[in-house]
């Protein structure tokens, strides 16, 4: 289940980011502090985004910062970061990015069900309202648990 990948301390609300790289680094920092990824993993996300474009921007206003497993994904986890001011990533169809779901996975199969839940949430207008109006991280986590 998606809620099992996300801890309360992995959720950050209305964060200030100076640019696209800063937004990625900030979205990844709770997973780094929580021992779910290495610093190399974050560098790999940024390096890939710099050399081959904003491949992690998946729908309007949403980015999914992640890198291949072998670059320091230590454990299955997902963080949620909302930005105070949306940031341009260079992805014309979906900019500006306002929500970042930084994730790490150790293989490509065990979190299939969780990713299906995330796809559904990203099609759910009410979820974006919750992201925008949440006063504390648990407001978002509770909504995810309710929809499971």
């Amino acid at each position: 289940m998606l809620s099992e990948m996300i801890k309360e301390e992995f959720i950050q609300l209305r964060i200030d980011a100076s640019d696209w790289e800063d937004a990625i680094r900030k979205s990844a920092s709770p997973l780094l502090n929580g021992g779910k990824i290495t610093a190399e993993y974050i560098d790999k996300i940024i390096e890939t985004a710099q050399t081959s474009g904003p491949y992690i921007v998946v729908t309007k206003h949403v980015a999914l910062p992640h890198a291949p497993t072998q670059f320091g994904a230590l454990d299955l986890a997902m963080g949620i970061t909302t930005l105070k001011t949306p940031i341009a990533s260079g992805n014309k169809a979906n900019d500006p990015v306002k929500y970042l779901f930084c994730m790490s996975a150790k293989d490509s199969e065990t979190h299939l069900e969780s990713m299906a839940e995330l796809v559904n949430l990203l099609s759910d207008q009410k979820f974006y309202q919750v992201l925008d109006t949440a006063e504390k991280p648990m407001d978002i986590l509770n909504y995810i648990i309710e929809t499971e």
Partner: protein
Amino acid sequence: MHKALVACRAGVGSSLMLKIKTEQVIKENGFPIQVEHSSLDAVPGFDGDLLITLADVAKELETQGLKQTIIGINNIVDKIEIESKLSQFLNR
């Protein structure tokens, strides 16, 4: 039956989500397409006829002279975009 590979750079996040959504669209429309997913590393060894990926990755693949048709999706939760691009492939 066509064989499609959904591939993105890592093979664990966006490609997985894109595969889930693409399979929903295929099922709802009864499209004769079978889907697997992986990272871009699997592209050279893939023997099917369709590659599905995010739009910016598609642009890069298009420069590589691959034999497969390449579909780039901008918005992975937009079923209409996925449906129309798959229909276009099937009717070409």
